[in-house]
């Protein structure tokens, strides 16, 4: 069981980790390990590898907690960023480009629905009441898909181009313009 996010004090937790209080890291693990593993698994596409990444992430959270600065972003965001970038670096450093196969097509099914139709899982949309979703909806569906696949699946430009059967240059331009549009929309 995890505590609803607003009730879990991520910042106090990281500050306690920075003081060397092991119990704080245990609490963070209980609170977020499953979600962090989900994020890592989605990018790594392998259970064992995803656990390796979450292992490394918790070690890094513990050893680098002193470098977390509350002025520069949310504590929960920091924890997710540490994990995501470990996963992304691992995939890029090992050139683990995913061949977009039927398996991954299947795995992508819930998100592929972002391609236009709004037949998305209601639960997922409820979780996504933040501003980013409103701004994503203003994007052309294909471009929205690019952004979501890149972020959630850790796809490279080339992988997205293959997945959408769209020229690489087009995908790069879409992502660049979509990021610009998101920044304007979100401030």
């Amino acid at each position, binding site marked *: 069981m995890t505590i609803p996010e607003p009730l879990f004090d991520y910042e106090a937790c990281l500050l306690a980790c920075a003081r060397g209080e092991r119990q704080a890291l245990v609490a963070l693990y209980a609170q977020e390990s499953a979600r962090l593993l989900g994020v890592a698994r989605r990018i790594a596409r392998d259970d064992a590898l995803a656990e390796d990444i979450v292992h490394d992430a918790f070690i890094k959270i513990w050893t680098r907690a002193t470098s977390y600065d509350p002025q520069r972003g*949310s504590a929960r965001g920091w924890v997710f960023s540490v994990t995501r970038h470990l996963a992304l670096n691992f995939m890029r450093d090992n050139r683990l480009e995913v061949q977009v196969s039927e398996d991954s097509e299947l795995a992508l099914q819930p998100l592929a629905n972002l391609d236009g139709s709004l037949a998305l899982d209601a639960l997922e949309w409820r979780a996504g009441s933040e501003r980013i979703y409103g701004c994503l909806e203003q994007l052309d569906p294909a471009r929205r898909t690019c952004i979501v696949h890149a972020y959630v699946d850790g796809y490279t430009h080339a992988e997205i181009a293959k997945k959408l059967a769209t020229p690489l240059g087009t995908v790069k331009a879409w992502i660049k313009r979509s990021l610009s549009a998101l920044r304007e929309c979100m401030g």
Partner: protein
Amino acid sequence: MTFKPEDNDSADLDALAGEYVLGTLDAQQRHAVEQRLPHDANLQAAVERWEARLLPLNDLVPAQPPSRQLWPRIERSLNALNVPAPQAKASWWNLLPLWRGLSAAGLAATLVLGTVLLTATPSVSPPTYVVVLVAPQDQAPGWVIQASNRQHIQLIPLGITQVPTDKTLQFWTKGDGWDGPVSLGLVKPGQTLSLPLDRLPPLEPNQLFELTLEGPDGSATGKPTGPIQFIGRAVKVI
């Protein structure tokens, strides 16, 4: 898009930060960004804004409970981190060669003192003079000379000195103001030698002793000709 010309740099920076957080950069580009981050406050701020903007997308991903082995594994790694001090900068405390050298020096000192004490025990009077003969290259002690009076010395090996088969060690001494070194005879490696100085002036502080490598019968000239193997000066002990 309505960027003023002066916004171009910051727009590029923001685009780079956005693609970094989004995850589309390749390995080389990612490492370049990560190396720049600690020194580039603007890039850092741009990355932080993108992290905050895109963070909610993580909620689209279903959670996956970790295996039971994961936390114990993390805990083992944390314990391993805590046992030795983290890699501190190489301070003198962590310099292995220094400690090797000091322990070798300590061992040598122990041997010298031990030998001095052991061999001193039978004699009634303690040694009044001690000489430690060291190798000139590395200062490694090889022999000790002790004298309980100024007319008699003992040469004591601290180990077996390696000598080529066609060579011998010759023992020499020279006091301040002497014309040159005087031979005290040939020495076999590992041999303890007891020598009266009856034909020489009494032992004096700072008197030089050395062992040189000479031909099988010793120096033909009566003066040292071969390389010095061990050398030292007499020290008066209280």
